[in-house]
């Protein structure tokens, strides 16, 4: 059970029993439960699995990984952390 995809938080609604958000997935809008990512803010990306955000996507880490790929082309050393 691993299918989870990243989506961008467009708005947050904390008025109901569960903290919900409107998430954009490449053009599709869906309502997602943000109960487990209380620190998440509008504009951030979250990883969504079966209607729940299970984590906030760390964009700095994402950039780091991609930068490392770029460097790999030059030095031939991999990421190791």
């Amino acid at each position, binding site marked *: 059970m*691993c299918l989870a995809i990243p989506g961008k938080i467009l708005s947050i609604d904390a008025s109901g029993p569960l903290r919900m958000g409107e998430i954009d997935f490449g053009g599709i809008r869906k309502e997602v439960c943000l109960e487990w990512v209380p620190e998440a803010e509008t504009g951030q990306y979250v990883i969504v*699995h*079966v209607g729940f955000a299970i984590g906030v996507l760390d964009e700095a880490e*994402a950039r780091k990984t991609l930068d490392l790929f770029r460097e*790999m082309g030059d030095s031939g050393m991999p990421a190791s952390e």
Partner: protein
Amino acid sequence: MKYIDEYRSRETAEKCLDDIRRRVTRPWVIMEICGGQTHTIVRYGLEDLLPSMVSLVHGPGCPVCVTPLEMIDRAIAIASRRDVIFTSFGDMLRVPGSASDLLSVRAAGGDVRIVYSPLDALKIAEENRARHVVFFAVGFETTAPANAAAVREAALRGIKNFSVLCSHVLVPPAISAILDAPSNAIQAFLAAGHVCTVTGFEEYFPLADRYRIPFVVTGFEPVDILQGIAMAVHQLEEGRIDVENQYARAVRREGNAAAKKLMSEVYEVTDRHWRGIGLIPHSGLKLRPEYHAHDAERIFDVGAITPAESSACIAGEVLRGLKKPGQCPAFGTACTPEHPLGAPMVSSEGACAAYFHYRGSASG
């Protein structure tokens, strides 16, 4: 799509592959234990791109595949009741039980519905008070919190006509079971990324220590998997034993505290039978006593269940990574997605189905 497309780039994949090719000097056997990763590997044809010295082995990463036969039979029995609306993730509907499957129950008039989220099932219960809604709660730690949330909400809001048939499984005990088997040849593990988004990867350190095996927490896109393999190869070649995090953009060492807290409030650990593998102690989750009113297993007495597995199916060996699907005598002949003998050929995340679909019936 952002944060997906970049990890499907041919150029980046080539770089990872180059890195692996340059580094590898000896044969290595690496196991992944996530249906999503199995799927990506076979769907993108990654194995053929890797140097032949790197062997990938698929573990029991498909919760649909490992749901005990007895539980499937129980689900079928409950779904067949006229007062029940049986809800489930789509994948479960075609898993063969001893004599039938949920899809047949539906064809025969049972109210079996596919839902995308357990909250959808809860909504159905709210809108259909005269009937009982049962949700088939299957999955690894990734899905357990979501199912827990549905149960907790049902309890809080007094939605009495909602219950779950709980068959959750935990990954680390399965890893132990696989590595305890004397016949295993696994030298490194790719840990399931989204499971670790929820749980974190703290519990993999003692595993790495005990079995002297490197772990790399890995994502699901082809580039993620290639990078995860590259990191594993580096550890192996250098003789290092560590737990590394390739999927750092989505996984933190401590995991998701709120999700874990919810899980511990709703579930407790139990022994669980894994289909094809057998009993693995402390490898499952069941509802805590406070939530027994929402436990479908207790609510519905479906009588004695005597499961009967196909004798030709070698799912157990495939799930433990001892055999590849193509090595099964029934693969592609007696056993196909059209007439499956076991679960791995039916679930789209199962290794047998992935091989059949993306590599053909003659694949090895």
